């Protein structure tokens, strides 16, 4: 059964703020284990679309199914397999890195496991920082910690909103490696970025948003060329 229903399926999804549509007419079918590169100029609705897919934002129109489940029927069941990395790192500044991970673990119903958390911190390049408060971290370090939290959740669907943002060049390599690893583990992936040449080779499919609407779809490797065409016709 699982093979027949896509990991993410959106039909005519639309969401507005005030008097304008942030995204509209989104049709998307992403099979389990496949990946999508999301591109578009600033304000084209990438973040809104990712939040819609993560079920934290309610669509005004259209329908979304996550692994065959409708989020409006059972929000908790639909949300469980999804993780979203946003611009904001959503950390508690006054808690240490390890404590931030522990909070997530408890809410996910996992037993707080210091060894596992420490290993995760090592994996994202924050070894030895476990006892430091998140407030003292630089923007890049916060991002790494947010990644550790996603790895802790171990979701089937990973949504990454600008994962390269605020990272240094060594961080770029870290994200590349992580994306590759997630792909190898068979995770479904949606990634939005402006660094098209960097992300395009490793992903399957591409989508360009313009003004909240789908402007181009095709294989990810063709996306950089198409993007140049779309933005400077």
């Amino acid at each position, binding site marked *: 059964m699982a*093979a027949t229903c*896509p990991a*993410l399926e959106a039909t*005519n999804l*639309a969401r*507005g*703020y*005030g*008097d*304008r*549509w942030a995204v*509209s*007419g*989104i*049709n*998307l*079918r*992403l*099979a389990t284990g*496949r*990946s*999508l590169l999301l591109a578009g100029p600033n304000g084209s609705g990438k973040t809104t679309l990712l939040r819609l897919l993560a079920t934290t934002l*309610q669509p*005004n*129109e259209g329908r979304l199914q996550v692994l065959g489940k409708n989020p409006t029927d059972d929000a908790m069941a639909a949300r469980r397999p999804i993780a979203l990395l946003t611009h904001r790192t959503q950390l508690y500044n006054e808690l240490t890195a390890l404590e931030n991970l522990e909070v997530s673990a408890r809410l996910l119903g996992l037993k707080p496991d210091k060894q596992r958390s420490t290993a995760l911190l090592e994996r994202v390049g924050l070894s030895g920082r476990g006892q430091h408060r998140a407030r003292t971290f630089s923007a890049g370090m916060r991002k790494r910690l947010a990644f550790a939290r996603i790895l802790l959740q171990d979701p089937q669907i990973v949504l990454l909103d600008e994962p390269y943002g605020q990272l240094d060049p060594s961080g770029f390599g870290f994200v590349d490696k992580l994306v590759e690893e997630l792909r190898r583990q068979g995770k479904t992936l949606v990634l939005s970025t402006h660094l098209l040449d960097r992300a395009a080779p490793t992903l*399957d*499919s*591409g*989508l360009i948003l313009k003004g909240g*609407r*789908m*402007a181009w*779809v095709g294989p990810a490797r063709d996306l950089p060329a198409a993007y140049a065409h779309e933005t400077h016709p």
Partner: protein
Amino acid sequence: MKRAFDKEHIIGVIGLLMLAYGCWKALFVVPAMNHFGEVGRIFFMHVPTAWNALLILTGSFILAIGALFNRKPSWDAALTGSVEVGVLYTALLVVQGSIWARPTFGIWWTWDPRLITAAILLIAFAGVLSARSFANNQGQRLRWTAVATIVAYIDVPIVYFIVKWLPRGIHQPHSFPSTVSTDYHLALRFNAIAMLLLGIWMTFRRARWILQQNAATAMSAAPGAALDAEGRTMVAGVEE
């Protein structure tokens, strides 16, 4: 441009006529009461206001539960209209009660279950309207109004209950001359129904205004799905 006649005006006109009749009875036909004298005529305005304030706010409570689940802008508009009319009636109620208390008890204000409840009712629902004006978008405005209305409404019996319960009230239960006439009942009932009809009329008009405002700033219909060069609906992603 000619506009269709809004049907709620019928309710409004009937309400106005009934109010005129009820007030005529109350002011000129009903005899002065043995204890209260002419001041007793205040009752024919005050009691219907109290009934209707509660009735309309009960309507708001029902609308709020409905709006929270169906999320329809029309329900939000009706909810806001009814809360506003409820606040108007409650404000009138408090002022009327205060004026009534001056000649009969010699005071403007006192610790009394009915007075305190009315005042809290007024402040709580005025707060609902105020919260509404702070909301960031239409969806949030609907949810905030509905949630605040539900909580405020549940608070009302609790306030009445706790104030009544504390034995500090000096309020005397009112009773009326047992020789009440038909005119007495006519005046009271006509005024009550008239105020209900007027309340419904005002709620409808206010809701219409809100919907009209929404229409001015509303989103156009969502653009449909984009089409590709061959005219097929675009679908992103990979299907197996």
